[in-house]
């Protein structure tokens, strides 16, 4: 009950609070995290130009993913008006992706970035800075005691927020199951859901999560239609 009451206080319709290493964030159903103190908005794994990245190899995926991802990003940025946006790596699907941005998408991105600080963290898909883009580039960043980085590390230290794994939860109810992107957190570490339109998901029961959380209890903050639902891991099952 406490959880719900707190949510009501702030943004009753869309967000729910998510505590990492004692810092309070708001989890948005778009998959973004917002730190009110710093007015910082975090997004992970945009994978921009994934469609054209596949097209280069002969798989002509619909060329609308970058537009769709940027539209969602523009929407969440408009709602929170952050001072700083941090993209937690894999913002572009390959090292040449930024150069393939269409003029229209480039304009939209610039408009989203306008009037705020912007930080691109590097990821395994985009290990180097992209030429011709606004914003600073770094491997890590800090919010209070928390390290922000792309790939979660086994030793999370004093707190960590990362992306890379694209967590999804398959939640069981009495009438069936539903599969959703989610934040997964044990209170010290949080792995963010992928934000990109073509970024697939990895079930939080996958072995890749084991070294990060071990057997510690963790919560899946599943993205619902209009809000984020905190679901105990015991209510989530493996795919298959």
């Amino acid at each position, binding site marked *: *009950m*406490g*959880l*719900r009451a707190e949510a009501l206080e702030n943004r009753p319709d869309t967000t729910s609070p998510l505590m990492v290493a004692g810092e309070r964030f708001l989890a948005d159903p778009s998959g973004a995290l917002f730190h009110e103190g710093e007015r910082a908005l975090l997004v992970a794994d945009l994978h921009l130009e*994934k469609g*054209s990245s*596949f*097209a*280069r*190899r*002969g*798989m*002509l*995926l*619909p*060329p*609308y*993913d970058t*537009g*769709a991802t940027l539209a969602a990003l523009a929407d969440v940025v408009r709602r929170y008006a952050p001072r700083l946006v941090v993209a937690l790596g894999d913002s572009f699907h390959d090292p040449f992706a930024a150069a393939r941005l*269409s003029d229209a998408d480039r304009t939209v991105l610039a408009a989203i970035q306008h009037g705020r600080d912007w930080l691109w963290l590097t990821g395994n898909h985009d290990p180097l800075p992209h030429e011709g883009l606004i914003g600073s580039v770094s491997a890590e960043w800090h919010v209070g005691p928390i390290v922000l980085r792309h790939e979660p590390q086994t030793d999370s230290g004093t707190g960590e927020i990362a992306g890379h794994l694209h967590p999804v939860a398959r*939640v*069981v*109810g*009495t*009438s*069936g*199951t*539903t*599969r*959703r992107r989610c934040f997964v957190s044990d209170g010290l570490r949080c792995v963010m859901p992928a934000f990109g*339109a*073509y*970024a*697939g*998901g990895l*079930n939080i*029961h*996958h*072995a890749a999560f*084991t070294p990060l959380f071990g057997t510690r209890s963790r*919560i899946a903050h*599943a993205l*619902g*239609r*209009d809000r984020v*639902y*905190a*679901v*105990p891991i*015991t*209510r989530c099952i*493996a*795919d*298959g």
Partner: protein
Amino acid sequence: MLDVATPLVSLPPRIASWFAARGWSPRLHQLALLAHAAAGQSALLIAPTGAGKTLAGFLPSLVDLMGQARSRPALHTLYISPLKALSVDVARNIEIPVSEMGLPIRIETRTGDTPAGKRQRQRRDPPDILLTTPEQLALLLASPDAAMLFGDLRRIVLDELHALVTNKRGDLLSLGLARLRRLAPGVQTVGLSATVREPAELAAYLRGRDDLPPALVVAPEGARAEISMLDTRERLPWAGHSARHALDEIYQALRGCKMALIFTNTRFQAEQLFWDLWKHNAENLPIALHHGSLDASQRRRVEAAMAEGTIKAVVCTATLDLGIDWGDVDLVINVGAPKGASRITQRIGRANHRLDEPSRALLVPANRFEVIECRAAIDAASHGVQDTPVPRTGALDVLAQHVLGMACAAPFRAEDLHSEITDAAPYAAVTREDFDRVLDFVAHGGYALKAYERFAKIRQDKDGRWRVSNGRIAQQYRMNVGTIVAATMLKVRLVRSRTGPMGQTLIGRGGRVLGEMEDGFLESLVPGDTFIFGGEILALQAIVEDEALVQRVQSTTPKIPAWGGSKFPLSTYLASRVRSMLSEPHAWPELPSQVQDWLDIQAERSLLPPPDSMLVETFPRGGRHYLVAYPFEGRLAHQTLGMLLTRRLERERLKPLGFVGNDYALAVWMKADIGARIKNGLVDLDGLFGEDMLGDDLEAWLDESSMMKRTFRSCAIIAGLIEKRHPGREKTGRQMTVSTDLVYDVLRRHEPDHILLRAAREDAATGLLDLKRLGDLLLRIKGRIIHKDLDRVSPLAVPIMLEIGREPVYGEAQDEILAEAADVLVEEACGVEGRSFREPA
């Protein structure tokens, strides 16, 4: 029933004496095919198993080939079957007369298993007769030397045609046939088929638009099968498909026969039954397992043992349905629902190859509804009723694949290829406009936003002819040819592990491959988890690249593999038969007494569903209100109906929470008292089940339908949008995929009339959504819905109620699940449950 006008020809002396030496005489239908071949006419032969169908198909080729000297090696006859095992088997069977008559005819097979060297040689130096599959034909036709290879082709033999034409493989093959007719004008086509509902429809598949209609040759039926249903002494289950209750009775039936085949509907059921039978196998009867996921060498061993008669029983899936020599099988046991009358008749007909002896079959229903369905199937079979599917309209995704293949073969003009593909019966109605859209799709994705011109897969040269952009695209085509879209599979390899010097576990490589399994299932396991595969309990050691490394373990409680396998919906014909049986108590004495009792109580408590109306029951249970409808239109149509109905109930503010459908019924549950509202006239059932739900509701629902997404995935892969395999990435293929669900979402939002979405919708209408059948249902029950408001669950509703909780849900119900799960957390956080545990009793 031979066509009386057929002038019969006599056999050449050499062949006639071969028949005589064996004490055989040629059958009439064999001679009829010879006569039609001599007259230059294509033909469709309908004959039961054991009637010498295959020999009939090849005799004209043998006669032709022995009569003429050919100047250079050239392909004379192409034989195509749905199964590569069948090609190998038939090659062996045709070799016998050829070598015994000393004919200088070379016969070879070409399948996915044929070594690359031999495949290359076959193109250079082709055999007289080549036996192959639709995929291999597509590959051959997509090569630049296709014109050379097929230029002298005289005959095409299509085996098990009834099975070939019912799916996208049949579409692909039809396009290949159209190309063959162009490469080898005058080529004759012979179709060999089991009995079908409408032979003329099937014959249309064989001809080009300028050809004469193929001759229809129908061989006499063999003795009718003796089919019985197991009348179990055990308690009949209410739901489920395992038939575990009847295990001992199945075992006893095996003891009394020479050799039995035990068919199940899915691979999982086969594994489970095989496992259970062996636990029960006190006499150590040689019982084997055969299904499509097992390693080919393992399957070949089982098939060889069947031919030698050294085996008592084989637990199998539909993989054994076609063609393979069944040896001395004298009993067919079908576990679970038969699903279609023709399906079961064809299956049973394969036992006891001698035509004069009836084949024997035992149907083992796994639950109460299946009892009725089995009874209906037995009645249908005894009346010789056929319920084979209607001919298909060619799928556009398959056309896209074919267009790319043709560009790999040689440059083409759009108008020529359009004219050629409309010569294939399933594609006869494709307009030039639609063809051009497919062409655009193949070239650069066919998107309104022209972003991919520079990545185009095919391009027009200065003469306006389309050619493939580069060799890599052609290689991609070759690696992804075909229409069978399975889940990504991992090889299951048996390994030995040992303890290393530091006490760590070292896993060896290089053990035997047991078969393959879906990666989704294997990845849900952690090392050490056990599962049944190939009749053994295995423990997962590790997943390395595309292999799951496993070890044998001693265990009796495996974690069961949750394979989907194939699920056929109940055929329309059987469904109507089941409906009429339910409503006719005088037919019940043929049913087991347990089932009669069940129906009696249903009649007392509620109502038996009348054949021409639809029964709807409503009742409260566990704080919810249930609506159960009994359309008997098959699981797929019911699931679609469930989705659409749920949307309408949401709109009426009845707060639906979920639904579930099986082959017979549909249950929806909600917060509001639906029964009372129907009685008080607040909800109109006719309106609720109105045909207009196939309009806007359907469109809105398609946005999030998982069935639609699955359909789209398969279309996207077949059409070449997504690759199954990528050159140089075979090993890591499963890591480089993109989620087709996400692609679907994006495409639907940005370009809802894209050609691939249209292909997926057309597919879904007859496939996973079964819209066609749902439409027919809504029309059938218009103004004929009977409502029973009950105070508790009815006997007939029990089976469907037991299926609740197994299926994914959609719409608002999704967030309901999330909220419900979140409530658990709130309770945990507030310590409500925790406290009650700690408190002393």
